[in-house]
């Protein structure tokens, strides 16, 4: 059955203009078929002799089904006795089911009732139509029957769990409630019965200068920065619990949503520490720098050079940040932590970076963060060196996509060429969001940190 149009699925043979034994030539019209549109002549593309007509007049067959057998010399085909010449089952290319083979050769008889479309579907799926129970008119096999016959049994839908009356709460308010640790069920809606952002109690503000209002500042990324969720440390037990709850919510979300990967590297930092000591010797005491600032500096530079890790995961896609806003994890003495931000950290000379670090850490610990300290970070650094921990494999602060960790500066055995000695080293880790990047990017990031730390031009 030739395809005679883009939407033709099957055709009904309405006339044979040749008979077995006739000689035909390429281009001859040999039959007529009726489509949904009209009756169209069927053309022959071979030269030869008609051996057998496979489809009786009045039969509908799918496109692609053989209509007749033409042999080059009229003798090549299987003997006519092999298959009764006008068995309707022969119209379909699939081997006839056994019961059909025994049936009398009348067009109307035994094959299951099914439209050409269904037959074709069954053929494609390798399904024996005779074995499919039909649910259509007169027991006809429908498309749904065919699909059901091949589909794996579907699990029953679980019964609906009894749920309380649906809360009318805006999407934003729901999000805020989670972030502030408030249970939406305990909130009081406004006059229209809808819980909006304003109905979510603000996180307490322990000191006047502490956190900015919960609404994000202009130009904020999609989510409030982590620094705004927990608040100052001096607010007493209630505040501390709330901070714990906020950290819990944020980190749970991180763990739930972000597929983390970790890479680490041991960095040798002897030369740069030596240089730092020299600089510090000449500097007045208040201006002296701590080694941590070198690591922050290197991390900020790396964030600039590996922009795939500097930005946010928003609505299923990575949005790169336009500058490096370096989040710095500051552990509070009373427990908990804050993550103030150093904006454009990659552009600051070391002394200024040191001043910024000193500033934000002090303000965080005193609970007096400025609003500029709470700008959203594009990447965050956590340095647990003070604790003596060798390395830190942390969780990313969503919606950021990377966290840089540094352990303590430790003298380790170090081979320089063939010479073995000890050198000051630090383990740097990079935790990445696997949705945004792969481990190789994290590895590249650590390599850049290493390079920066070994580049005298980068030193103070």
């Amino acid at each position, binding site marked *: 059955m030739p395809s005679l149009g883009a939407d033709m699925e099957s055709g009904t043979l309405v006339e044979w203009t040749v008979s077995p034994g006739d000689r035909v030539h390429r281009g001859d019209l040999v039959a007529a078929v009726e489509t949904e549109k009209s009756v169209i002549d069927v053309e022959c593309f071979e030269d030869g002799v008609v051996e057998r007509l496979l489809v009786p007049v009045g039969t509908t067959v799918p496109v692609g089904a053989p209509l007749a057998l033409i042999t080059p010399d009229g003798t090549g085909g299987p003997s006519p006795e092999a298959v009764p010449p006008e068995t309707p089952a022969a119209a379909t290319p699939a081997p006839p089911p056994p019961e059909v083979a025994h049936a009398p050769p009348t067009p109307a008889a035994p094959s299951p009732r099914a439209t050409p479309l269904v037959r074709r579907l069954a053929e494609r799926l390798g399904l024996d139509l005779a074995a499919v129970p039909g649910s259509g008119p007169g027991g006809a096999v429908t498309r749904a029957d065919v699909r059901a016959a091949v589909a794996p049994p579907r699990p029953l839908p679980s019964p609906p769990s009894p749920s309380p009356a649906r809360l009318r709460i*805006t*999407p*934003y*308010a*729901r*999000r805020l409630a989670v972030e502030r640790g408030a249970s939406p069920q305990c909130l009081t809606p*406004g*006059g*229209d019965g*809808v819980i*909006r*952002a304003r109905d979510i109690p603000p996180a307490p503000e322990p000191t006047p200068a502490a956190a900015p209002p919960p*609404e*994000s500042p*202009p*130009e*904020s990324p*999609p989510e409030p920065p982590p620094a705004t969720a927990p608040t100052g440390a001096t607010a007493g037990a209630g505040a501390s619990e709330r901070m714990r709850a906020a950290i819990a919510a944020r980190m749970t979300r991180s763990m739930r949503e972000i597929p983390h990967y970790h890479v680490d590297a041991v960095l040798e930092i002897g030369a740069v520490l030596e240089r730092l000591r020299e600089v510090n010797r000449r500097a007045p005491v208040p201006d002296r720098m701590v080694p941590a600032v070198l690591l922050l500096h290197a991390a900020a530079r790396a964030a600039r050079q590996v922009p795939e890790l500097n930005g946010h995961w928003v*609505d299923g896609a990575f949005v790169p940040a336009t500058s490096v806003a370096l989040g710095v994890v500051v552990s509070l003495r009373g427990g908990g932590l804050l993550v103030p931000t150093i904006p454009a950290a990659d552009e600051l000379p070391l002394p200024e970076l040191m001043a910024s670090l000193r500033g934000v850490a002090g303000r965080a610990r005193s609970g007096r963060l400025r609003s500029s300290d709470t700008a959203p970070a594009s990447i965050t650094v956590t340095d647990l060196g003070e604790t003596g921990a060798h390395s830190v494999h942390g969780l990313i602060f969503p919606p950021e996509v990377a966290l840089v960790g540094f352990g303590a500066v430790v003298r380790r055995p170090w081979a320089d060429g063939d010479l073995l000695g000890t050198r000051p080293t630090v383990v740097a880790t990079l935790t990445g969001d696997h949705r945004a990047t792969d481990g190789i990017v994290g590895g590249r990031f650590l390599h850049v940190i290493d390079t920066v730390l070994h580049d005298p031009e980068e030193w103070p």
Partner: protein
Amino acid sequence: MSLRRQTYREALREALAEALRSDDRVFLMGEDVGRYGGCFAVSLGLLEEFGPDRVRDTPLSESAFVGAGIGAALGGLRPIVEIMTVNFSLLALDQILNNAATLSHMSGGQLAVPLVIRMTTGAGRQLAAQHSHSLEGWYAHIPGLRVVAPATVADARGMLAPALASPDPVLLFEHAGLYASEGETNGAAVGLDGAVVRRPGTDVSLVTYGGMLPTTAAAAERLDTEGISAEVVDLRSLRPLDADTVLGSVRRTHRLVVVDEGWRSGSLSAEVAARVAEQAFYDLDAPPERVCSAEAPVPYAAHLERAARPAVEDVVAAAHRTTG
């Protein structure tokens, strides 16, 4: 160039003259663009400066001269075709959709159609239902076209040059109500795909474009007196749509009102609202609101026409609904 004050019409004319002067591949054609000076007097004086070869009066045959613009663009020229109003552009829709928007893709990237089509859109002058519609949203539906709607004098002055530089067909919609408006421009080019925050605010985002910008800005003023800080976003480009700017605004204000002179059903306003619902759902503190033209052909009678179009009070009321 220093900052100068001029009308929207003058800004368009100056941009056309500059384009004709700076590139001999550029020419202007359309109905009555030459001797008459343009139906809205935008091209007044250009025939005298550039001659009839480059400022071409065409017969009233939109399909032929828009298609000729396509062919001329394929042949290496940079045509600017003026269609008197968007309603008339329907006579050339075959050429705009089936050829201009399609040839690059359908030819596997072999052909580019660097054509600019300018046309007037919008109601407000009692011209009734065959001269007043806002169909730019239809065109924004079509991949392959760039659709821009300058709403200010600076945009009117600055969008033509980038449009001519684009290798793709650009449709430039001029709202008839803006031609006499005044503003400042330094003549600088304005990019074709960026929305802009016309007025910052914190409580609700009013997203609009083209002829509805003045109405929306006035609504923002009024809201301000009530203590509601409205941010006004001018889309400028209807295709591609600068969703980031809109989403950024909604993420700050958590409320959205779209103001669009087109009809509501299946409109550009629907597209903006859908994008926000898809991509900023968890930032929404109220259902998005839309302020659109009445779902009727624009009528002649002044009071009916006024009622058909979005008005300042409609925008204010929509903003109130979002702020609860």
